[in-house]
Each structure stands twice: as structure tokens, then as C-alpha cells.
């Protein structure tokens, strides 16, 4: 459902993604972890059609990017760093707006349903600027689910969430897996990543250095595995060269 081959992205002369090979099967949940600056957000923005790759193959929902970007967007729900909401509109107005943009007809019941799913039905007619960070993130999740997408992408969605909102998000991710949605989640929370996802991949310095099924991994030992994987691509090298592939960890 999501596939990249030799994906590269540079901003000017600065390479951010250096040949990412990634595959997420239909209905699978992949947790993508990695240090700050690894390229997680850049990768997610490419998959979400917000920016184009410099080189390489990208397919989302089985469709090639950037050629079929419009059709991919129809099948994609994204929860990003920003909530993508309008603070001077109410929760209901925000969702009505996105319902129009996604060409949904008769969206009223659907809006009520997603608001109930995220626990915001009682605040439906309140301005978003009166919401806490956690409530705004819940509404952002409702926005991403509104058009019933096949593919969901979450970019560090737990940032700034209170425990109640984090638990709600966990339930959303579990429901997404049960509903057969393909999910990509980037997070710094290794424990949550292992608990929620089917597979985990570590992105460091623009390449995937580790990939494995979560079922076989020991949550207590994964921190060491993570540190070793990140260290395997080494400290900053002025030449920009990476260590040879044999030094990277494999599943």
C-alpha cells in the first residue's frame, strides 16, 4: 500500500533522504522511529504529496507519486505537527469545511460520528481557539478520519497530548488496524511504537537502518537496539559519506 524505492530528497545541496526503501503492506501499521533530523517528517511529507522527491519511486495506496497525487490525497488522512485547523471557526465548521474539500455529501452524520469517536461531540459548536492542545489534536484526528481514508499517516501525534488524549489516540490506531487501514506512524515513543505497530523501522541520517516485526522484539531491549542502529550511521561526517551497508543492522 505504501512503497518507496531508492527515495532521495535534497534541499539544495543538503541531502535529507539518501535512498529510502520502505514497504508497508495493506492493513499494516508501521512505526517509523529515529532521532531528530533523521528525515522522518520529510519522508512523511513526500508520502503525503506535500513535497516531491528528488529521485526514486514512491507509491501510496498503490498509486504512483507525484503523477497520481490528486487521487492519493482522496485516499489519505494525515495528522501532522500542526493541527491544520482554523482557530476562528468552530469544530463543526472546520469539519464542514473539510467535508466540502473532500467532496463528501450528506456529511452531517459522519461529522457527529467522528466527533463522538474523539470525545468532542459536546464541544461541537465551540471555537477551536478555546480548545486545549489535546482537544485540538483530537479534532485534527477527527478531520483526518472524516473522509474514511484507506491510508493514515501520523507525524509525532503524541506531542503535547495529555494521558487521556494519548489513550484516545491509541484507541484510534487500534481501530484503524482492526478496520484494515494502512497506517504509518512516526514517533519518539519507542514503547508505544512497539505496542501499537505491526512493524517498526528506524530511520537515521536519511536511510532505513533497521526494520523488524514488533512481535519478535523485546520492548525492554529495544532501546539498545535503537541506539546501536542510530550509531551505526556514525557521527557527522563533513564529506557526507555514509558507512558501508554491511555496518547497518538488519532484521
Amino acid at each position: 500500500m505504501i512503497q518507496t524505492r531508492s527515495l532521495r530528497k535534497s534541499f539544495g545541496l543538503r541531502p535529507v533522504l539518501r535512498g529510502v526503501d520502505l514497504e508497508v503492506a495493506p492493513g499494516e501499521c508501521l512505526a517509523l522511529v529515529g532521532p531528530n533530523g533523521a528525515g522522518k517528517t520529510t519522508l512523511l511529507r513526500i508520502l503525503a504529496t506535500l513535497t516531491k522527491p528528488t529521485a526514486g519511486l514512491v507509491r501510496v495506496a498503490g498509486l504512483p507519486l507525484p503523477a497520481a497525487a490528486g487521487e492519493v490525497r482522496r485516499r489519505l488522512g494525515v495528522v501532522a505537527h500542526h493541527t491544520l485547523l482554523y482557530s476562528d471557526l468552530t469544530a463543526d465548521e472546520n469539519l464542514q469545511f473539510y467535508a466540502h474539500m473532500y467532496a463528501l455529501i450528506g456529511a452531517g452524520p459522519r461529522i457527529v460520528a467522528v466527533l463522538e469517536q474523539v470525545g468532542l461531540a459536546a464541544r461541537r459548536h465551540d471555537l477551536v481557539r478555546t480548545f486545549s492542545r489535546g482537544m485540538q489534536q483530537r479534532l485534527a484526528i477527527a478531520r483526518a478520519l472524516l473522509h474514511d481514508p484507506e491510508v493514515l499517516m501520523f507525524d509525532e501525534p503524541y506531542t503535547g497530548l495529555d494521558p487521556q488524549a494519548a489513550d484516545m489516540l491509541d484507541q484510534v490506531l487500534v481501530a484503524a488496524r482492526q478496520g484494515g487501514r494502512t497506517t504509518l506512524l512516526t514517533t519518539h515513543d519507542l514503547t508505544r511504537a512497539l505496542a501499537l505497530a505491526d512493524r517498526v523501522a528506524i530511520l537515521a541520517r536519511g536511510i532505513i537502518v533497521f526494520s523488524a516485526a514488533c512481535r519478535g522484539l523485546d520492548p525492554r531491549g529495544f532501546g539498545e537496539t535503537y541506539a546501536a542502529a542510530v550509531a551505526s550511521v556514525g557521527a557527522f561526517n563533513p564529506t557526507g559519506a555514509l558507512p558501508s551497508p554491511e555496518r547497518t543492522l538488519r532484521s
Partner: protein
Amino acid sequence: MPTESAPAPAQPRATALPMASASARLRHYGRSVGAVLWKDLSAELRSKELISAMLVFALLVILIFNFALELDRTGRENVAAGILWVTTAFTGTLGLNRSLAQEKDRGSLDGLLLAPVDRSALYFGKALGNLLFILTIQVIMLPVFTVLFDVNMVQPMLLLVVVLGAVGYSAVGTLLASLAVHSRSRDVMLPILLFPVALPVLVSAVRATGGVLTAAAWDQIYPWLNLLLVYDVIFVAMAFMVFDFVVEE
């Protein structure tokens, strides 16, 4: 930590408009333009951030010029056109910059770009909103001009010039503001980009306005009106073609 639970009860499914036919796609396009416009107008009606800033700036410029220039009637008719369009240019630039900057700073620009709609629909929605804001300021400015400068600024032909000029300025301004918004120095970048490109609009509008105010012959006004109209059409068409590339990161 999550646990596998019993499946949630079935929710109402989202039903999307089928896009098989050209008329369905056109209908979705129109709805998207309307949705972006409605969103901007609703937010502005509640916050009044843009309009209040633009209005205060416009009134300040008019007052300063009024006190600085002590002219007879003929002089006032000659300079009123220039003052009107200087005020419109600076006020419009203020509004254009803030309109796109808000989207970028709050992250909602990505929300628009994620929508499965031709991106030119986003352009037209934003441009129409910016046009309405500029026209709102001009509707308030024109009677103020009439009172302060003792020049009749509320005439049908003049209103036509004002509308055509605002359309052109909004069309090119929205396009260039979308380009400048990605720059760190966008407050400086937009005027640098916009003023040279919008010069034909401003010059034509000034000459046409001056012709109307001084009751010049029609054959002296018509070429400038014509130029305004042609410019509007060219820039709207150009924005339709290039907005997708401009707005992308």
C-alpha cells in the same frame, strides 16, 4: 497502553461525490472555491484582524495626504487618483501578506494542499477573499475621500475602475503572496515582487481614475480601462496555470 478490544460499533460511512463525470468534477471545483472563500470570510468576520489593520492603515494614509497637500479643486482632482491607488496598493499588500501568512504560520496551508482538489481552486478561493477585503476597504475609503478631498469619488464609472483595479491587484497579489509565503523575509519579499508586476494595473487604474475625475473624453479613458481588463484576464489565466507550482514546497 492499548489493548485489542471488541470492534467498535459501525459508524456512518463517508460518501464522496462520484468524480466520474466532468460535471461532477466541475461541481466539486466550484464547491471547493466556495468553501475556501466561506472559510476566509467566516474567520475574518469573527476575528476582524485583516480588515481592521487594513482600514486603519488606509484611513491614516488618506488623512496624512489630506493634511500634507493643500491644493485647489483642480489639484485635488489630479492627485486624488494617485492617492487612492497608493492607498489601495499598500493596504492591499498588507492584507495579501497577512492572509497567506496566517495559513502558513498556523500550518493550515498544508491542510488545503492535502485536499483532493485542483490547486487552482485554492487560488480562486483565496483571491476572491482578498478581492472582497480590498473592495470592502475601498467602499469605506471612497466616501471618506469624497468628504476630505471634496471630490466626488462615488460615480458609476469610477466604481467600475475601482473593481477592475482591485481584481487585477488581488489576482497578481494572491499569486505572488503564495510564492513569498515560503520565504523567511516574506514581509519584504512580497512588495519587492508585487509592485513591479502590478505596475500596469496601478498605472492604468490611476490614469482611468484621473480621467473620470477630471471628466476627460471617453477616448482618453477607454484605453486605460481596456488595459486594466486585459491585464486582469491575463493574470487570472496565468495564475490558474502556475499556482500549483508556486504553492508547492
